[in-house]
């Protein structure tokens, strides 16, 4: 069974003028189909206003579809009786690290989710400890979150989600406000978690480098899914990506330019090591 599945998903909101009168409907998501299998790492790409964040909020039932259906772990997100189950099985990490930390001490913040779920006290402590260890923040457990760097805060936020033991984690542009080091830290943490805990990861981003290892990539534009496939398939369509306002990873870009100048390189090269290998192979011939 799919972990997350969307069929013909539509999300509309009312457009209002300055006095607050409804002047029409705006479609943020327009007929999206999505299939995410358990344990998969799925990336959703798109520039600002493409509807990717709105889609993320659908998975956590913060927003519910205006048309079509969204199932999370087999549950319809529109069913009010399943709301808390949906939110528990799909945890969410947001963009701004400051605005999602509730506790005044790191460990208290990580314990917030389990507290809400009504987990017994002793188990909260073991969960908090395990989650903080998993994201490598255990030595900061009694620190104030205000003293941490952006990347560290984001890892605490991830720990807070893991402590709820979700089957799936949705990360909504978790690195957009971070410096390059923080960005690397967060992505590495997510990768490690995926290996250790076999959780499904849905990463929403506009950084191409972060999606290279994904099992599947969706590209969104104007509320529609315009491309989907493996990273290799997606990044071999450089011209098309550019049309949607997306970049490609640097190695892919360089390979594409070299190919245009007549070098015999395959399409869809993702890593710089890969590019080096292919160039070395050309040289030997």
């Amino acid at each position: 069974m799919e972990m997350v599945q969307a069929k013909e998903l539509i999300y509309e909101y009312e457009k209002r003028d300055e006095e607050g009168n409804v002047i029409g409907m705006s479609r943020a998501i327009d007929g999206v189909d999505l299939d995410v299998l358990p344990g998969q790492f799925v990336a959703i790409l798109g520039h600002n206003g493409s509807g990717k964040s709105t889609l993320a909020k659908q998975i956590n039932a913060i927003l519910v579809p205006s048309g079509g259906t969204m199932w999370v772990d087999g549950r319809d997100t529109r069913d009010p009786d399943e709301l808390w189950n949906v939110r528990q099985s799909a945890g969410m990490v947001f963009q701004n690290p400051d605005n999602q930390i509730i506790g005044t001490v790191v460990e208290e913040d990580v314990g917030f989710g389990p507290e809400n779920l009504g987990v017994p006290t002793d188990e909260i402590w073991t969960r908090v400890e395990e989650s903080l260890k998993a994201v490598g923040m255990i030595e900061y457990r009694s620190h104030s979150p205000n003293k941490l760097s952006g990347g560290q805060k984001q890892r605490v936020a991830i720990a807070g989600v893991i402590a709820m033991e979700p089957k799936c984690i949705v990360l909504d542009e978790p690195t957009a406000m971070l410096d390059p080091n923080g960005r690397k830290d967060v992505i590495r943490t997510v990768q490690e978690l995926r290996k250790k805990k076999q959780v499904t990861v849905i990463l929403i981003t506009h950084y191409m480098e972060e999606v290279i290892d994904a099992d599947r990539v969706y590209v969104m534009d104007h509320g529609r899914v315009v491309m989907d496939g493996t990273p290799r398939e997606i990044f071999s369509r450089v011209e098309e990506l550019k049309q949607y306002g997306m970049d490609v990873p640097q190695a892919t870009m360089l390979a594409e330019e070299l190919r245009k100048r007549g070098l015999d390189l395959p399409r869809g090269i993702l890593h710089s090591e890969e590019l080096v290998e292919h160039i070395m192979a050309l040289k030997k011939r």
Partner: protein
Amino acid sequence: MIRDITIGQYYPADSVIHRLDPRVKIVCTLLFLISLFVQNSLLGYAIATVFLFWVIHASKVPLKFILRGLKAIVIILMFTVVMNLFLTTGGKELVHIGFLHIYEKGLRTSVFMAVRLIYLIMGSSLMTFTTTPNALTDGIEKLLHPLNKLHVPVHEVAMMMSIALRFIPILLEETDKIMKAQIARGADLESGNIIQRTKAMVPILVPLFVSAFRRANDLAMAMEARCYNGGEGRTKMKPLVYRKRDRAAYGITILYMVVIVLVGRFVPFQIWIF
């Protein structure tokens, strides 16, 4: 300059008083404050003094920290003392300068009032010095829990308080940033009279409010995403449980109260002064 503001004024130390359950500290502080007003004799004040200084000593909070809190009430204190000193009549006349008279009763009331006010501030600041704001919120929540039956949203109010405490440093930082940004754009915040300076605050407050609302919206979403659904069915990571030392603290405070009440009843102050 804005970073100098400290709220909560917690003094971190490892002492018995710090480790006490916040409920004990709240209740005992209240009892102590009441004890200052139920009696009026030198012996009573002597007992209160011994009790207060003994607790301060046990809390490992330096006395000068606690005395610093008195600065805020110096003016009120002077006012009370002067008023009581000159306006209370009764007993022997002690001093007579022009139209000013100081009577025995006036002297006594003013001294006692001063002591009461000083101990009041010392006692309550000792509580905030030894209790983290979060523990204090937890304690208040648990103490007021019975009000839930009267449909008072105790948990929600406590949650609001603790979130406010978490966001104070963030909003202070943001204010600093906005001020610098406006100064960089040529805003003049330092000169002019008080009206001009108040007007100059508008370009700082507006962006601050906008950003605070945006943060509140984000935070509410993040809390919902983590299954926050009000206080019902919620467990606690750090539940408040009374331990031996908490019961001992209650015992000692109640004993102290009994002594104070007895002193107030059976020892008339006339014996102890003049």
